[in-house]
């Protein structure tokens, strides 16, 4: 369903990767391995449609994502290296507002259920700036649960998470894959997921 055709990416003068081809179908995930600076984040951002590749194209169900625009954005959820959460808002507000802006209205009750799932129910009324790095990462991941997106694009999802958090993240992703979802994960460690067809790319 997702195809990358002949992708190449350059950062300034440096060519990070070129001639990258892969395709991803429902229930499968792609792990992009590589050392720091190898272009993992750049690849993810190209897949998101935030950056244009130096060459090649990304297709969703046969159509270029450039052409699809917002229709494609409705199908993806991106958890970047940065969490994208507001310090001044508490987890419930963060979640409801980011969903609301995306056009997906979440009631207080629904948001609380999601936060319970990611282990943030005790902290749900604290402003996000008072949360630890791991808790903020969980909040960022909670957005995935509340999103109808089929393709999850995750940049180092396990960063800052403790063992429980890492297990939680793995379970969430595995469940998503079992439900016909797809994922592209940039990571420097093995994900070891319990479901889903895996593909690897070394950058």
């Amino acid at each position, binding site marked *: 369903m997702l195809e990358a055709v002949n992708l190449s990416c350059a950062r300034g003068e440096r060519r990070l990767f070129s001639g990258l081809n892969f395709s991803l179908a429902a229930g499968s995930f792609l792990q992009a391995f590589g050392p720091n600076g190898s272009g993992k984040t750049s690849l993810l951002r190209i897949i*998101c449609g*935030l950056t244009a590749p130096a060459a090649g194209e990304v297709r969703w169900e046969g159509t270029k994502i450039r052409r699809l625009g917002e229709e494609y*954005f*409705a199908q993806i959820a991106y958890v*970047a290296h*940065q969490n994208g959460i507001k310090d*001044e*808002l508490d987890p419930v507000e963060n979640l409801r507002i980011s969903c*609301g802006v995306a056009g997906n209205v979440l009631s207080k009750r629904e948001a609380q259920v999601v936060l319970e799932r990611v282990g943030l129910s005790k902290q749900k009324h604290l*402003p996000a700036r008072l949360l630890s790095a791991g808790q903020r990462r969980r909040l960022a991941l909670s957005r995935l649960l509340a999103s109808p997106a089929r393709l999850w694009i995750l940049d180092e999802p396990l960063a800052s998470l403790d063992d429980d958090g890492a297990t939680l993240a793995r379970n969430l992703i595995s469940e998503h894959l079992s439900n016909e979802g797809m994922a592209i994960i940039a990571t420097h460690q093995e994900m070891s997921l319990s479901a889903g067809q895996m593909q690897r790319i070394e950058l």
Partner: protein
Amino acid sequence: MLRWIVWRDLILAWRRRTDVLATLFFFVIVVSLYPLGIGPEVQLLRRIAPGVVWVAALLASMLSLGRLFGNDYQDGSLEQILLTPQPAYLLVVGKVFAHWLVSEIPLVVIAPVVGLQFGLSENTLAIIVVSLLLGTPVLSLIGSIGAALTLGLRSANVLVAILVLPLYVPVLIFGAGAIEASIGGLSAKPYLLLQAATLVLAMVFAPWATSAALRISVE
């Protein structure tokens, strides 16, 4: 969806109220320094009032532009917003509207009060309010283009000024012209209509330019 983005920015501004109040204080201080510095000669004060009020509004507006996208850019929420299935145009309209409510409306409200220091008539004070009401949205709209283009750059503040001040000049001329006309006993209507026309143009073109600039800055 527009409701959500406006609501979001309003709550965030409320929780960081000191930033917002700073812009208001700046405006009040700049406008008030002139009568103090120049002396109580009413005729002179009336002559400079239109320019002073408008230049102060302009500078205060410019100071507040960093807040429009800067915070969201730094914590990664901006790209999340740009990845929603909503037209970027609407997102920009929502953010700029919230920014205007929070940064410019206080100026519009306080302006007649500080305008009293210039010995202006009630009629003129009313024209000041209308002129600012019509002109400040244009400042926010045009300013948003500059803010989007300079996101994440090092000397962003200086660059925004260079980009945006020349485009602010028509707003200044029409706005100050309206107030001046009123002081001179003439009708301010032609200037106000010109301001309204600038507003319509800005509402149509600026969000489009700003969303294009945002996509470039986020790349």
